[in-house]
């Protein structure tokens, strides 16, 4: 999913390669890029399941407005991953309703 070379932009400035976890699995991304981009590049599409209908949601607006992409980041729910910069060893989890999985069930 990453664009290596772009005809107009050339390359993209990237931060240091870092490891983070998604639902416990180890993934890698670049420090400073939005968490949602690192997830997307790693093939993760579902960020959360909704409270009422338990339906999957992912990136929708990518600029922090729609809040569809919220996840639990370092234990904090409702974090907009599209505008939250990735840092080494971040703990990113799928959000169920307003919190962790057990809370919704």
């Amino acid at each position, binding site marked *: 999913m990453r664009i290596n070379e772009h005809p107009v932009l050339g390359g993209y400035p990237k931060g240091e390669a870092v490891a983070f976890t998604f639902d416990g699995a180890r993934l890698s991304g670049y420090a400073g890029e939005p968490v949602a981009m690192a997830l997307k590049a790693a093939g993760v599409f579902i960020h959360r399941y909704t*409270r009422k*209908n338990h339906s999957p949601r992912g990136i*929708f607006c990518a600029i922090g407005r*729609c809040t569809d992409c919220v996840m639990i980041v370092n234990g904090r729910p409702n974090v907009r991953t599209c505008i939250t910069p990735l840092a080494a060893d971040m703990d990113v989890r799928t959000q169920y309703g307003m919190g962790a999985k057990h809370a919704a069930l």
Partner: protein
Amino acid sequence: MLQDRTKNTGGFSPAPDDGLIICRCEEITKGEIRRAIQDGLLTLTELRRFLRAGMGLCQGQTCGRLVKSILARELGVPPAALEPVVSRAPVRPVEMQVLARDQEIDHD
């Protein structure tokens, strides 16, 4: 502008797309919105308060226009003729703990 509450809007009749999600945050469907209108909630502000459509995390940024067009169609008026929703601060979601710090920090 005063809403005409005596106007006959025809009552609720089911439609095939009633199950469509309109407000993504609060998961409110088109059918719920149409039914509420036919039950007498005739302004955007009333719909908002009654259904919570547009009161989720995104504060109606995605569905505002969609709800407006549904209301306009049910009432048989152009969308631009509807009274807009009242803007209130904060226009973006702010956690209570951040809002609470307003008083203590910044009176420099």
